[in-house]
């Protein structure tokens, strides 16, 4: 069980998140939706320890882990795949995988990664920055497949990818869920996200404006109301 409890956070003097609470049980996927600037990425940064909340707590199975910092949280099993910069661009794929896995268990980590994305096997000596966007995204996602991940935070993992690749990523997501993992998914393809999610949180201007079952959002009217203007939801899909 992963809980973000009453978190208020921001940058400098600007407050981005106010009193946000969010819970993800194990073996489930929560989708985090909201318009641009709602604070989705900031929430993930708080959840993985990159940003210290000014108040509120992060709980992992009831234990307060707020002050562990990003590396401590990662050791505790929180795996955050940030948007756009989720691989080490100047390292080879093999070196990337080496850093992704826990120290001393590099061989194991490599096997798990290749099992999840066999296509990477032929690319182990390639420098990550020279691969295509989709390949880089697969490399980034191998982190979620490695043993020890208990919470997976995914930020726009399918952005800019070909539809066939997006399918692959969602298949992968389903597999991850099977392994006692809590997944928090920030996604631009709303319908796709709703189809896979067990819970939905909608964030607007730094506050949670909806929390509940995806089925409740089936009605377009409600969906629009929670997200804001109707035109925005068009742009979303």
């Amino acid at each position, binding site marked *: 069980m992963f809980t973000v409890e009453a978190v208020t956070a921001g940058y400098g003097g600007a407050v981005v998140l106010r009193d946000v609470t969010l819970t993800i049980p194990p073996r489930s996927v929560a989708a985090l939706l909201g318009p641009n*600037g709602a*604070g989705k990425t900031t929430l993930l940064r708080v959840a993985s320890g990159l940003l210290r909340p000014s108040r509120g707590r992060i709980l992992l199975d009831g234990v307060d882990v707020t002050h562990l910092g*990003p590396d401590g949280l*990662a050791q505790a099993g929180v795996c955050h795949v940030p948007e756009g910069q989720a691989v*080490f661009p100047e390292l080879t794929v093999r070196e990337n995988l080496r*850093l992704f896995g826990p120290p001393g268990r590099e061989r194991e980590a490599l096997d798990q990664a290749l099992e999840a994305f066999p296509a990477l096997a032929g690319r182990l000596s390639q420098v990550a920055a020279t691969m295509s966007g989709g390949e880089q995204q697969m490399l980034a996602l191998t982190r979620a497949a490695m043993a020890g991940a208990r919470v997976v935070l995914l930020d726009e993992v399918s952005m800019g990818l070909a539809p066939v690749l997006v399918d692959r990523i969602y298949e992968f997501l389903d597999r991850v869920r099977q392994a006692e993992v809590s997944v928090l998914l920030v996604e631009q393809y709303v319908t796709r996200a709703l189809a896979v999610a067990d819970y939905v949180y909608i964030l607007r201007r730094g506050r949670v404006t909806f929390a509940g079952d995806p089925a409740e959002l089936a009605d377009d009217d409600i969906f629009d109301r929670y997200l804001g203007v109707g035109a925005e939801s068009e742009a979303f899909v």
Partner: protein
Amino acid sequence: MRELVPYLVVGLASGSLYGLAGLGLVLTYRTSGIFNFAHGGLAAASAALFFTVHFTWGWPWPLAATVAVGLFGPVAGLLLEPLARGLAGSRQVTIVVATIGLLLLIQGLLFQGYGLQRRAFPEFLPTSTAIRIAGVAVTWAQVLNIAVGVASFVGLYLFLRRSRLGVAMRATVTSPDLLALTATSPRHVRRASWIIGCSFAAGSGVLIAPTLGLDPFLLSALVVQAFGAVAIGRFTSLPFTYLGGLAIGVLASLATKYLSARPPLNGIPPVVPFLVLIVVMLVTPAQRLPRGAGRSEGSEPSRPRRHPRAGTAGVVMAATALLAVPRLVGPRLPVYSAALALVVLFLSISLLTRLSGQISLCHAAFAAVGACAFSHFTVGAGLPWAVGLLAAALATAPVGALLAFTASRLSGVYLALATFGFGLFMENVVYRTGVMFGTRVEGLLGPRPSFGPIHPRSDTAFYYVILAVVALSAAFVVALRRTRIGRILRALADSPTALATLGISVSVTRVLVFSLSAFLAGLAGALSMAQATRLGAITFNSFTSLLYLVVVVAAGAVSGFVTSAFVAAGLFAVVPSYLTAVTPELQSLVFGAAVIAAALAADGRLARLAGRCAAWADRVADQSEPRLRNGPLRERRATAERTVGVHG
């Protein structure tokens, strides 16, 4: 060809150590983003430590080397990592000045401990012949220098490729956040790289000391060679950095052979690394040079405005005090006159550094140009005093323009390096030509003015002449800040990109501000020479430029734009005449420490830290006393948050 072999051997042996120092510099710069100007200072400190342990205490040299490298290096690394972390994200000017402050601090400590006199540092390694190459005896010491350099390079290269920590070091260059997300602390990784980098500096310091002697200046200048090596590696490549060190060693050695008997060209060998550095930076596209951890943009945070009438009252009081100085200070008047001349120089540095966000590490050279031109115009060509003064300042402006034009694509740490190199080149080559000081050790003459009631022998009359020039310069700077040009200069510090999008050329603006600054510096140099009546090249050496900059920035941390020039001159020139304990060495120590503290406190970081402490105390109070939750403090914060608004 055969006669070149000894020079090649010497060049490779010393070049190997330059490369070693360069490797440490690249490693720390790339992993932390902080370019450490004090790298050579660390080498000097380690050599001094070795000197004490081996020569004074009599420990055997392997043990002394263990202390000076194996112990000192890691300790220095552990101390520097938090400093670098504190500096990351500051303005680039702040970072450069802070590491220069560290260099001055180390030099000051060494001068305190070991005295100003250069001490002989006997070769501790066996000097018996190891092998003969083409009939030339190569000593064990030379073989060992090369072996240590090669072994360190190969070791570091393999470490960065093979070990997990090494791979993490490469990862932290571009993606420290992602590294943290993969459960490796970037702080630990950087700490390790500072330990390695400082140990490399320490090792090169101990090994080069027998060649240079125990002289903090000379040993710190090892960093100059390292700069050249690092430039050949384009601030990124380790193999090219090491090869660059070798190349610089060989080039300098060959230059010594061919140029040592031909003044002024005999000044070239010590500046070879900087000639290389400047050439590399000029031919390398700016985007190929790695970016440091500093912000390239962002002007100095403006200080709260005082009440206008309080400002006027302050100016009147200060002016009265300055006018009354000759009546109050008696025989110390020349000290005050010298300090006033420095005020003009410090104004010129403030104009460049604090207003326009540029860095110059060659202001002593500008002042020297002004001083020489003044002497040549008045004593040589017989121009009237005031005309000579103005002409000297005007003659300096193009030097600034030329420098800005040549370095027009460089900013931040690269501009600092280029200007420092320019200063060294001026000092070692141009100062020695007839255009400037020539080869006369006693220096050049500068006359005092003689017109109307002003008698050339009267110190009091001359004090008022300088005061008038200072008043004009200050008025000029104040007026300049308020004009359109002043706003453009502030914009240059704030955001060169925005300036360019407005259709204002960044290069032209920089040429302009460098010319203006050089003009004032030349004026200051001419005044200093007239005040001292005779000045030699030694007054204007390159390390003085570093001290000037550091003093101005340190004074700027506690006082306003124009005031800080007076404060800096007072601290720099007047205080030592009252407190004999305040030697230049102590000054360099104190100013070095002050400027590091100022850099760490800059950009409102202290305020943020205080805020974080308050928030933490609040949280603790919150948890222990739930009743506080709806207290007035909480409400006030909520209101504040509403007014700030939300930015996703």
